[in-house]
């Protein structure tokens, strides 16, 4: 694992942030490529277990966005 490339797991709400992420693409914006997205139906779906599991699996950070 390189120091410069942490892996970030993000949980994005299908209706809000996932849409924003799509729009960022449509607008051809750029941002770091460290983020891996899991689409969830709603942030209500989030459970603390997911965050802990992600960190245990070696994710360097977790980002939950509604």
């Amino acid at each position: 694992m390189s120091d410069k490339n942490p892996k970030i797991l993000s949980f994005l709400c299908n209706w809000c942030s996932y849409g924003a992420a799509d729009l960022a693409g449509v607008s051809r914006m750029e941002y770091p490529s460290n983020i891996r997205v899991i689409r969830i139906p709603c942030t209500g779906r989030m459970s603390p277990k997911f965050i802990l599991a992600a960190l245990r699996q070696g994710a360097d950070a977790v980002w939950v966005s509604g």
Partner: protein
Amino acid sequence: MEYPQAVPLKYRIDPEACIYLQKGKCGVCQKKCPVDAVDFEQKPQTVNLNVGSVILAPGFEPFSPTGLENYQYARHPNVITSMEFERILSASGPTTGHVVRPSDNAEPEKIAWFQCVGSRDLNRCDNSYCSSVCCMYAIKEAVIAKEHVGESLDCSIFFMDMRTHGKEFERFYESARDRSGVRFVRSRVHTVTPVPDSDDLELRYVTEKGELKTEIFNMLVLSVGLQTSPELVELAQNLDIELTEGRFAATDAFSPVETSRPGIFVSGAFQGPKDIPQSVVDSSAASSAAGELLADVRNTRTKEKKIPPETEVTGDRPKIGVFICQCGTNIAGVVDVPQVVEYASALPYVELATDKLFACSQDAQESMSEMIREKGLNRIVVAACTPKTHEPLFQETLTDAGLNKYLFEMTNIRNQDSWVHKNNPELATEKAKDLVRMAVSKVSLQEPLEELELGVHPAAMVVGGGIAGMTAAKSFAAQGYETHLVERGDRLGGQARNIFHTAKGDSVSEKLEELIRSVESSDKIHVHMNTALKDVEGFVGNFKSLLSSNGNEKEVEHGVTVLATGAEAYKPDEYGYGTDDRIMTSLELDQKLKEDDPVIKGLNAAAFIQCVGSREPGRMYCSRLCCTHSVENALELKKRNPEMNVYVLYRDIRTYGEKEYLYRDARKTGVIFIRYSPDDKPVVKAGKDKITITATDHVLQMPVELEVDLVNLATAVIPYGDEKLANFFKVPMNEDGFFIEKHAKLGPSEFSTDGVYLCGLAHYPKPIDESIAQAKAAVSRAVTLLARKTVYSSGTIAQVDQQLCATCGVCVSICPYSAPSFAEEGRFAGKAEINPALCKGCGLCTASCRSGAIHLKGFDTDQIFSQIFGIDEAI
């Protein structure tokens, strides 16, 4: 592409700019296009269509201020229109949302808005109507500009009357002034001069107190009005439909979306200047009106689709097919697609991995469904663009190939990968691999899901027998549906019974009697008078309501419900109301006008006091219809006795749209308008002969005394706020007691609860024409459901494993849609169960179930874990 919302979202050639079409050379695009989509030979064609009705929704054009010399629009770069400013605020606009002024791209410190540019003005343009929307959009622009730039930005709006008559608009106006710090200046600026040696502008205006002021601004936004384009005027002539004075399509208050020519309907700003929710209401209403005409031929020209039987895959070992889209060069130009394909084919359970030039193209879809059949694939992953737009398309391909459409996962390697990491192809390829691996591990746990098919009972229930409710019932009946109209009182007609004239001067009672007769005589409409709603159970398509009338109970079944419960007039305890017969509410005056009461004949002077109970703390909304109503009755009094002195005491006159003509005519005929401020309200004293009103005149800045024989209080419209009813249908109400619609702009006539709709005053105060339009709109939305005969619940819903349920009740209390409840009978009585018809699949219950008993299909805990576990390999 003209704009990102274009339908269909495809590129087209601009013949004016195309070198090939202009000069016959180039054609590079044709050579480059990998799917031969470019065709220079296309010519305009005339297509003849045979239709039963036509709906006109051609919209408006913004007024062009080029001709208004005094505003410097044509000459000064920092004078722009509100439409142009809208683009500056937009994240997808030329400045990506940074507020800068055009001349030097510097962030402005002071911006001024001018209202009524191209509206309410006969001197410098032909538009004497009010454009209805500009006050609100100017406030919105000012607030957003302050959000973008920061607190320090000075935003000033110069206006004549502030017209925030829409739902929740008054509160927005208040908070823009008090919380966001937007400055409102009641003044029409007469001179704008460029400041020498700078890009700023100097404004000269007269304040309310009559002082001449000069002030310097960095930038000026002209709030331009809405108008009908000359091309549309020509179209209207060709179609032989009548236009109004303001060049909008002429309609009648009782048929607000019908043009003067039968079969041609109109919606949106071509019917009159209006905002989005009102346009959406109109468009639904127009489709309902058109649908009434076409009810007999409904579904005669639709084609049924054949669906192959579903292959049984439960228990089979996953055989995953991975399709990776190149999207032309959109993905393949950045991500090394062959490398991802190779990587994907080595993943567990993957039977086949391949790439597609355009996975969404028809030939790619066909080859996908062929491969599914040939290789016996039972799970599919598509790595392409976004599931938000393309998931349904691929799911349809699965269905066509005989595979359950939930055996599918889509991962986004375009919008969220290749497009945003184009300078980092290596990392983008790595990311694509990770995303594909995560999708593969999720899909292998995916199970075929069932969409519950629910029958729709082909009947409607309308609650409320006012003008909105009756219009809705009549429209349902005209489209062939049995309708139960429930009225708690003993007469149909609601508030319209009390109203004398519409704003267009038509008698209400005649039309109302006509409507009541047609409702009572319809064999499809069952009118339940003196009836209360006792209980409601069921859900979309299958409601069962218990009606109770004089002790008799009756159960009716209906597929949809329209709430049209109306509102009532506020009875004030101020201005001496109730102490003197000569002080009355607007509806009481209407009654006197209708009956030609001798009292009216004896009047020498009358006064109208506006905003009684509206726009005040505790009732911070504008009742929308009272300004027009009072101005119209003021005119009526003047008509009956031109010698009478008529006064209107107001805060802002809100005769929006073409109702502005009434205000203009009232001033012309000598009605005197006196503005008061809410902290200095008029004082009413009833004497023996006369009533004396003392108010501060805004022009003279001095108290004036008016002696009148009659005082009309324009009181607020108050909803009934029936919580029991709201609970029956699980629909929300706002703090004022009005129902909250699904979406303030895009879903004004429906609730977020499926199968329940709303219209009329229960939604927000509105005049008769708007109530009728909304009633038709509610029916239109409801009929889209009734016409389908069956509804399918989504497959991605929560389900309870009742063996694990601990009956804690968290899911029951937490669900925003009331889907979970405790089972009442059977082996698992007392345990939670989830109604699939109500569940929206948000997963709130799944996450909060402490026993792990709830599974959200399609996003189940083990699937999300498998995605999480999918990342460790990359680390």
